[in-house]
């Protein structure tokens, strides 16, 4: 087969038809930031906006993947086709990763209505890989009714996800009330739905109460956030979760507007700039960068002043490394 850029429109066309192999390939091209990526993303633009993008976030081990698995089953019962983007961390040292989220979703491997893709964070700043949003768009364009994003679950990822997902499900586990407290500021701001998973374990109700109490302390003018209990293994509470997601999605889709979309794009751009700057600073062999580094070391330059200089420098001499 001819392997030139002219294949890209065909690939995009196949993707829009919903062909899994084309979707898989397009994801790789976009994820790897290849030249073809922009062509594909442009080609799919008219086909976006169908899917509801649901983010699942929460600390490692709370049962996100297991709950996604159970939630997929529920969605399939409701006749929805599903795409899943499951992000696992890359090693910051080697860049390698073992991607294991889909182990918990094995029962859906042979279901044509479910397409699961594991992404490594590849050094993206937050938990969600920088390209996850674009991957979600690809799945949307391929006609998936619901796209689920499972995050790494640490650090900034929650907030990042907030920018991408239509509906944000934040998951915690029994006895994690205190942990939640520690990070609650960020979490409570973004959550559309709070889930206490592992409801089969002791303390589940108590944690649920705790979360509700915390929510009660918030500004009363804000929308209400349901707190649900699920047992991802015995599959209880998942129908309620699906209902809640649908309710939120209905609201969100209505108030989705131009400025929200622009805000999201702006956020993604900011992330990309940060990533580019990082790569530039870490890999550059130029005098300029070395001089800035030395200036900071010798306390002649503040960090923020150094950063400003780097950004100025980025535009100019970025090609002598």
């Amino acid at each position: 087969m001819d392997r030139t850029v002219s294949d890209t429109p065909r690939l995009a066309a196949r993707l829009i038809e919903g062909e899994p192999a084309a979707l898989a390939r397009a994801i790789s091209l976009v994820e790897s930031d290849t030249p073809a990526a922009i062509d594909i993303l442009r080609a799919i633009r008219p086909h976006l906006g169908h899917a509801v993008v649901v983010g699942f976030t929460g600390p490692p081990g709370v049962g996100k993947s297991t709950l996604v698995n159970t939630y997929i089953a529920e969605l399939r019962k409701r006749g929805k086709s599903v795409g899943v983007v499951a992000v696992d961390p890359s090693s910051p040292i080697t860049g390698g990763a073992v991607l294991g989220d889909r182990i918990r979703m094995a029962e859906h491997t042979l279901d044509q209505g479910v397409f699961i893709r594991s992404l490594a964070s590849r050094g993206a700043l937050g938990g969600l890989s920088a390209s996850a949003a674009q991957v979600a768009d690809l799945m949307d364009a391929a006609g998936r009714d619901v796209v689920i994003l499972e995050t790494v679950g640490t650090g900034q990822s929650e907030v990042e996800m907030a920018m991408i997902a239509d509906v944000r499900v934040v998951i915690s586990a029994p006895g994690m009330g205190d942990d939640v407290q520690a990070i609650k500021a960020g979490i409570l701001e973004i959550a559309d739905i709070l889930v206490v998973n592992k409801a089969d374990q002791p303390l589940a109700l108590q944690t649920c109460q705790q979360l509700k109490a915390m929510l009660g302390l918030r500004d009363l003018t804000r929308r209400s956030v349901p707190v649900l209990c699920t047992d991802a293994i015995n599959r209880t509470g998942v129908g309620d979760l699906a209902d809640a997601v649908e309710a939120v999605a209905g609201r969100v889709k209505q108030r989705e507007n131009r400025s929200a979309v622009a805000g999201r794009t702006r956020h993604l751009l900011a992330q990309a700039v940060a990533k580019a700057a990082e790569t530039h600073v870490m890999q550059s062999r130029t005098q300029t960068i070395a001089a800035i580094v030395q200036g900071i070391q010798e306390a002649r330059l503040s960090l923020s002043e150094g950063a400003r200089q780097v950004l100025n420098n980025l535009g100019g001499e970025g090609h002598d490394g």
Partner: protein
Amino acid sequence: MNKIDTRVLDDRVDRDAMAQEWRRGYEAQVSSDKVVRNRSGLEIRPLYWPEAGTDPEFDQKLGFPGSGPMTRGIYPSMHRGRTWTQRQLIGLGRPEDFNGRIKKILKSGGSALSIIPCNSVYRGIDADEVEPELLGTCGTIINTVQDMDICLADIPIGEISIGLNDPNPFTMLAQLLVVAEARGVSWDRITGTSNQSDYISHFVANHMFYRLSLTGARRVQLDAIEWLAENVPNWNPLSVVGQHTQQAGATPAQAMGLTLASAIQYAEDCKARGLDPNRFLERFTFFFDVSISFFEEVAKFRAGRRIWARLVEERFGATNPRAKRFKFHAQTSGVDLTRQQPLNNIARVAVQAMAGILGGLQSLHTDGYDEVFTTPTEGPAKVAIATQNILKHEAGLCDVIDPLGGSYYVETLTDQMEAEILAVIKEIDDQGGMFKAVESGFVQRAIGDSAAHFQEAVDTGAQIIVGVNAYQDEGDGTAHPAIDRPDPAWIQKQIDSLAAYKKTRDQARVDAALEVLRRAACSESDNTYGALVDATRAGATQGEIIAVLRDELGFGRPLVVV
């Protein structure tokens, strides 16, 4: 290390009294002890101990075999009285093939029988549902009572100890019981062990055998233990397995600790069922890996025996002295064996077997030197048995009980291993017990870390493996064994025979019996095992039975930790 209890009397008089007590036990077991002399003509006594001096540590930690701390052995006479059982695992092709081979083995002096089913049986599926390529490659295809009957044709099943590699929910045992019934052999004459009953070890390290969900397996396990105690009183329903975890990568201390932690879990589960520790603990047996790390293995077994005896008394309050006996089967470690220069494996197996024997095992399987190529073929299997016989008769390993006892090194190491093992048990206790610790993936992670650690040592050359990362010799002249796969025509016959079996049975009766089994599984108060035996008798296949239980109690999905 355990603290010395200074209340124990430590003068000579008591030591003598203990020795005399041991002597009485010994003579009861060995009615006509013959004089043993070595090649220089010196007389070899069955046991050596510090006869003079005061040594409270000896009394507290070692004592005499068959009593007290049990460190030196669980019987007064150990191998000098009765040598270990040679239990070689076999299982090939069709039931007819198995029967032919086992008859040969029994004729040539074998005393026990052990059945390994086909991988498809381990997975709980029948021959008509599996890719035929995979049938009968590693074990015997046994789906029905009829298959079991053929396996055991002309075998006096009431007179021979039978080892069944029959994971939870124990369908092979049910088939055996129905065969016994048909032959008029009463169930109390059936002896042997369900030696793949440790579903926790399967969940963690031996996934092929793991059929029902953890909670489902737990339920059926207890049902079986309870039902068998009533109906098949001389059967050992539980063998707690350390082999799987050690082969998966756990260190010897870790493997012993995890095994004891599992035994604790099973015992606590039995107690919670209202069973009597004095009765059920007596029926617990163990199954371990024995690696080439010679002294470490000896110390592992001595320490494990000591800990178990204490646990039985202190943790479960059992007073029955038989319950304190840490009876174990050992299998030489296949992981130590190499594809490179395979004849070297004979030497490795001999050293491993010695460690197990001097560690006080009750039963032993030695691997063939073709371990890394295939399930043992006939030639290598013979060498493996000969290795046991050489150790037994030529090396004189059976002459003396616990011959390494008293060595500064071995005693120190035994204490140190004991401390390590206790630390593992404590860790598991802190996790809320073994069941919880495997549910959360804690144990899987720990084993994986140890496996990676060992591999790292091999990769860097810190651990030398002859022929693999040192002393390599490409053309060492050893031929790789030719592998025989089952004849596809025979396999087809076996599949056909299953179809014929299904046609001739009373289908209504099968359906009804499976329905009763299903209802038993759904009701907390029914015993599933009785219903399982009934379904087997009615003609249900193992695959059908397991499918029903999987439906009701959950499919066994191991927790894969990466």
